[in-house]
């Protein structure tokens, strides 16, 4: 079937098998391999993307659900603030060493941006609770939590400008 949606700001039309998962569509057909698949039970969160502004696990979403929707993936995060600079959340992860092997990072970033958008005054407990659906095996989460707090503050500051 044919579906049309906005992908990282660009109108996109693709032919898909209706049983295709969004994560597979992105990785295999659209060559956007930044969205990762780390499990088969919707637990790890490496595949999180934004569907109409909300974070979803793209490994659990069928492609037809995209028709008419707006999708943002990790590849589109850079430059969402207008320039081609890293998003403040990406910058915060770099600054605070919020990543090691990088595999969980795209999902972490997409979840973090959604958390900070939803609740501008995030506490540490909010962040830890909000990251429940994203597993990282490298960092022990500490620097991710620090990064998300800093990234959220930077997003707030940018909004205020």
């Amino acid at each position: 079937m044919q579906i049309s949606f906005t992908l990282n700001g660009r109108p996109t039309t693709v032919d898909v098998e209706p049983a295709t998962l969004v994560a597979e569509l992105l990785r295999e057909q659209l060559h956007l391999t930044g969205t990762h698949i780390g499990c088969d039970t919707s637990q790890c969160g490496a595949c999180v993307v934004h569907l109409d502004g909300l974070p979803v696990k793209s490994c659990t979403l069928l492609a037809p659900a995209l028709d008419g929707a707006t999708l943002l993936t990790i590849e589109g995060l850079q430059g969402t603030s207008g320039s081609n600079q890293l998003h403040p959340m990406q910058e915060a992860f770099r600054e605070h060493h919020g990543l090691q092997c990088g595999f969980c990072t795209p999902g972490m970033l997409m979840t973090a941006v959604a958390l900070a958008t939803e609740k501008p005054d995030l506490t540490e407990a909010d962040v830890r609770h909000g990251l429940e659906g994203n597993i990282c095996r490298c960092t022990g989460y500490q620097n991710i939590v620090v990064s998300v707090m800093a990234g959220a503050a930077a997003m707030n500051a940018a909004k205020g400008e």
Partner: protein
Amino acid sequence: MGNVIGIGASPKRKEDQRFLTGRGNYVSDIKRPGMTAGVFVRSPHGHAVLRGIDKSAVLAAPGVIAVLTGEDVAADKLGSLPCGWGISDAQGVPMKEPPFPMLAQGKVRFVGDMVAFVIAETPEQANAAAELLSVDYEVLPSVVGVLEAVRPGAPQLFDDVPNNICCDWELGDKAAVETAFRKAAHVAKLSLVNNRLIGNPMEPRAAVAEYEPGTDRFTLWTTSQFPHVVRFLMGALVLNIPQHKLRVVAPDVGGGFGVKQFHYGEEAVITWAAKRVHRPIKWVASRSEGYVSDRHGRDHVTEAELALDETGKFLAFRVNTLANMGGYLSTFGPNIPTNLYGPLLGGVYTTPAIYCNVKVVFTNTVPVDAYRGAGRPEATFVLERMVDVAASEMGIDRVEIRRRNMIPKEAYPYQTPVLVQYDSGDPMGCLDGALVAADVKSFGVRKAASASKGKFRGLGYSTYVEACGLAPSRFAGRLGARGGLYESATVRVHPTGQVTVMIGTHNHGQGHETTFAQIVSEKLGVSFEDVDIVFGDTDRVQFGMGTYGSRSLVVGGAALSKATDKVIVKGKKIAAHLLEAAEVDIQFEAGKFSVAGTDRIKTFEEIAGAAYVPHNYPLEVLEPGLEEQAYYDPVNFTYPGGCHIAEVEVDPETGTVTLVNYTAVDDVGTVINPMIVEGQLHGGIVQGVGQALFENAVYDESSGQLLSGSLMDYCMPRADHMPMMKVATHSTLCTHTPMGVKGCGEVGTIGSPAAVINAVVDALSHLGVTHVDMPATPNRIWRLLQNASLPVAAE
């Protein structure tokens, strides 16, 4: 020169840009023209005779290109998956080493054992066709636990391995230990289980293989921590592919933790199959598939006894362990519970006599091999639990008994009774630092506050040492290593002065691209931005043993340091010629070659230019070019260690253990990048906390089914399980590595399980609890409390 960023600085990581923007290059991202999809059919039974396989329905399915089984492997006369270590018993009798065919032959020995490989045009077709494979199994009883496996009458995995015992290994002076026990004022005893773990790097294993008939060359892209070792083991010992006809690439790898440091059957099958079908093939494991095929870790059952004099001094330590090997010997399997375990049983203490017996046992489970820490967390857990048990039984404070037995800083180098000689360390300094950082003085106040909320609060210590920087080849060879354990680096200076380093270690999260660039930037005085680190490709990197055992900086960094030294030596020769001075008068500092005592200088860039445009150049005595290579074989292991202090709160209503504070003060030697070291410590600690509180690989005893076979069933640490940790370093310098480094990748995982469980036991000690097995889940604690609370209630 430019932006020199050297040792001790924390520049942001070079590798981050691609990972932050979704532009990493992991194996599952790779696409090749004409690529097909491969799927493994795995045994659903723990133990069965393979009576026959009927491929016909699979071959008739849409899109199927080929189906390969163990019979095809045998027909092509391919080798068994090799074990890299050969251990022996006390009499020198070698371990039993049954073949490990890449696709099962005759029998399957664990759930997940590979039976067939199905290749089709698409992953969907391969998956659908694989369902159609008809396998005739004669199911046999399984045995999954080590205690059951060695009992008379237990199911036997191999005809020629009686009682499933691969090797009955020992270390230490048994007679001296017995004598000491006879003199002891007190003997403390402890039985414990070191729980079985599944590594769970976030990137599942994957491989892509391709064969080029025009050149007769194979390429394997694989999620590996050591591509050169895969090329050697697979090419030379399994598939009979000459080394120069085989390229192994491990690009970005999403975490390893040991799970990706073995040569897996999947790698061999897919490479062999790529030539048979003359098409590239891709295989990507699902997480569930990883659970039944990634090598597992730990899984010990141990009885330990500590002999003490009346003052609490340790006289002797005796440890008997049954270690699970799973269904076959994996690449490092038998080395982990023996050579990486027994020699660490001295810990940071002066115990004069130690004896350790380890029975290495086959069971119907996934093969067990190294997982972050590998043998050393198991040793630390036995010893640090034992110390607490002894202190409690003798009524000595837990910190005081550690102090009475600790090796004083001035006693280093210190020869232990179990092979290893610690070159440097200051365990007392780490302990003192941690006591302050953890604010142990005020623990009583916090405990009272918890009690007022109806919670039990406990504090736990782990003062530990590990052996890493694997490894001195000659020493390892005596212990049974079948390969060398050196490392290599090439420093290629370009005509414009930028530098590319080719190194044999592998970066899969550790930040090597940054740390190694700092070493080069400092030593050569070149800009940090002007250094790139290349790894993970046997066509680009000369040779290397890869990354595991906290070895990359210790051994790889030393090779890199040596290679840069050689660049400087050659640079001085060129400078001497250009500056018309004697070579001995040339100094090199901060990127400049100068004649001592003059202002005549040549920059590093000028020397590099001269090396590649040798018009004014001593060609009669010196080759053009500026590229140097070094191999480094360490003279000893390194011995990082430290003190970890965990503080927990137990809710008696639910049995839930909450980690409320965690403090670590570690001695990792010279710190190149403090930000990266801290990150390694955080991650390591949480993996150890995971073992202590959450993680457990559980098999059904009769069927051999893995019950904890998904992320829904195997509890991984999550962000809200952890408090903010306090980590710090208290370093003494390694005396035998070029930069004084000791390694930091595994310390967190080695120190933490004992600290956490000691805290849990402390929290419950008023109820008479003396030991808690890992993981200390709410269920386990709640049951303990139900049993323990009866006599208390009766008081």
